[in-house]
């Protein structure tokens, strides 16, 4: 079995599941902020 790195999970689980999930969860919010800021600047 793969060696566990943090919180009892293997490295590939962090790289393929945990980190991508966190990034994918934050992206819509950051995109919304960027779009609104751009619109505010254009007005």
């Amino acid at each position, binding site marked *: 079995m793969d060696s*566990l790195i943090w*919180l009892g999970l293997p490295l590939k*689980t962090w790289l393929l599941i945990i980190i991508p999930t966190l990034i*994918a969860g934050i992206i*819509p*919010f950051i*995109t919304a*902020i960027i*779009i609104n800021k751009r619109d505010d600047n254009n007005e």
Partner: protein
Amino acid sequence: MNKIFINMFYFVFYTILILWLGKTGFNKTKNDKDFYVAGGNLGLFTSISTFGGTWFSVVSMLGLTGSVYVFGYSAILYSVIGWFLGAFLIVLLASKLKEYDIKTVPEFFRVKYNSKYMQITAGLIIIISYIFYIHIQIRGFGIVMSSLLDIPYTLGIFLIYLYIVYTTFGGLISVARTDIINFLLIASGLVLSGFLLLKMQGSISEMNFQISQINSEVFKGSEFFTEKGSLVDPFNNGLQPPILLISSFFAWGLGLAANPQYAIRIISAKNKKTATMMVGITVLILLVIYTSVVFIGLGARVLIPTAEGLNSIDEIFPYIIDNLIPVKFSGFILISMIAAAVSTSNSQLLIFSSAVCYDIYENISSKKINREKFLTINRFVVIIGGSLALLLALYPPKSTLIYGAKIWAIFASSFLVPLYGGVFWKKATKKGAIAGFTGGLITCLIFYIFRLGYQPVTPITSDYLINPALPGVAISLLFFITVSLKTYEGDLKGESM
């Protein structure tokens, strides 16, 4: 105190809340714009509640919790990441779609491409897909009701009329108002369950260590075994191979991005800022909720490595509540499941009604329709749609998560490319849109009819190794771009004449 009595108390409390909140829509709905999109005037808080309530369906609640219990962390890769990436596309869409004065998503196709054919066909796709989708919500509701009140499944699914039809009668104003309480219940019920299950493990590390050691049958007598280490493996030790996960993204992620039940929330938000922030903030809340779902599914697997007396993945969460959650909390968590089923199915039933009445009936009818009578017809269609879904729920599928992906694949293959292409690509033409829409849909249907790429994944589930959404979206995109480029010059000449 008697468990059924406590559950009945929660059930009555929920019913009163829904009756009270739902009645607002009856008084405030004056026309079809109010009925379909709440007058296009929903504020940020209500928009987040209704977007989140619609998003978090029984598929997420029962299907995903059960899938995490059975497949471990790979279930997240299979679904949640795709959903969140789909949400990212919806934020991009929100920044542009708000500029169109429309009441339904199929109407976008008529306005943008001047195509009644596309509006009517899109309406038909919604009717068929949503009936099948609502029936899995009803199934979830039935499972929960029979567990909550100790009544037969069939009686449980009949009770859904009380909620779905009532809340849908008041249009989106009622749906959005009741979604405030529904989303609150969903979030608090799941976070509470996750917290309780995690507390039983001691720590996250301990829970992960324990699940990595599990080597047992999933359901007693199913002959489906979990290998040691597979629950923490991203591909479940090969049981869920990368191709299955990648192609599932096309169904879940792109299907979500093209699904009218989310796009309609863009139209109902009061402005562009509200629409984009609605999606961004809801997904952050969902991140917390899905983390709780993981704790529930994995924590339960540690405590009960082999579940007894179950036939499907969807029965796992109610089983967890029955066996692991203290009685004083179980009724509360069970009504949060009802909230998940109600908040999604009433939104879908409303879109079903708009597809029948607005996108199809009004387009093919030569008579001028009285607007008051039109609202009555819409409400009548709500009853018809609910009844059809109810009948289908008598013969439910084994896994809502896999079944849901099949329906989403149809939206990804047909709606996605003409919708996003129409909003973002200047060279998109009517002929290109029709070719992409029809080509993608037919490709997806061919994969379904001939079961191309279909195979049993485990003794308890079967799925498409190559989800039909993948070839569907590819063909749709190919046709859309090729035909648009060929007809773009001609369309320009036509416009200038």
